[in-house]
């Protein structure tokens, strides 16, 4: 099945793109998807999402089809869903 990916702010900057699509096994869990993304996008991407102890940085929001989900909920994803990774922004 396919999952649509969207990225904002610094995550978008690191990847040099604001969207992507990934083919994954049916019924994949969120944490497994994030692991695949770390493998695909590399160390800098990983350092934004995870601290030195491998713990998820929860200030990076995860949005599944317009609803926020927590990393630790580890929701099951279905075919065609859109997953957005948002790094926090401020202002000034």
């Amino acid at each position, binding site marked *: 099945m396919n999952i649509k990916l969207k990225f904002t702010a610094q995550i978008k900057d690191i990847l040099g793109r604001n969207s992507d699509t990934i083919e994954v096994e049916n019924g994949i869990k969120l944490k497994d998807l994030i692991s695949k993304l770390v493998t695909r996008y590399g160390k800098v991407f990983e350092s934004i999402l995870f601290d030195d102890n491998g713990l998820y940085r929860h200030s990076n929001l995860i949005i599944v089809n317009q*609803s926020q989900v*927590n990393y630790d909920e580890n929701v099951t994803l279905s075919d065609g869903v859109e997953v957005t990774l948002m790094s*926090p*922004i*401020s*202002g*000034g």
Partner: protein
Amino acid sequence: MKKLTEEELATYEWQLDVPEHGVEGQERLKNSTVLVSRCGGLGSVVAYELAAAGVGTLILAHAGNVKHSDLNRQLLMTHDWLGKPRVESAERRLKELNPRLNIISIPENITENNAAKLVGMADVIVDAAPLFEERFLMNREAVKQGKPLVDCAMYELEAQITTIVPGETACLSCLYPEHPVAWKRRFPVFGAVSGTIACLGAMEAIKLISEFGEPLKNRLLTMDMRTMDVHTIQIKQRENCVVCGV
């Protein structure tokens, strides 16, 4: 509650016709106090729109003097005020627009020393600060004192806004429970981006004070002005939040 004068009735004639607002809502605006911190790209336009709308008192908190690099987005700062205090420039411009406006200028940014006092003086807080340290302080005090807070943010051509109502919604620390590691003080942005989301922030404050419409409670409105995609994301309170303690 102070009533509207004849001059105010004439000035606000067009918005008095907005359903559910009217004279009562306008009087609530007149009798309200809004804290805007800071008066940069976001805060300048928030303050300008609130001054235009007839908010009675604005507390403006912003340290430092006007620099060239402010002028692409900080619309209350002017070229002739370069090197002079930002809050003075802001006050001068706002008074040109609305001489009835009461302005409390604080030439400081939000810190641990002033956050509780400034939040305590306001009915509504509009968070337009560049540093998460300032944002988290305002959020903590707003939650502690039960004051609604409108949080506006921007980066490049992206912008977002949510309205925090203590006891009803997720707070900023629910959204961002850890200090963001990737945020940098200087970031790419156009003034039209900050101005756009600032107008939405002003509208949220007006709705909260006048008591009409549906503020962005537990909703994060996101905009990407590169593509003009606008979304409203459902957000939620975080269990064990250190600030709102859900």
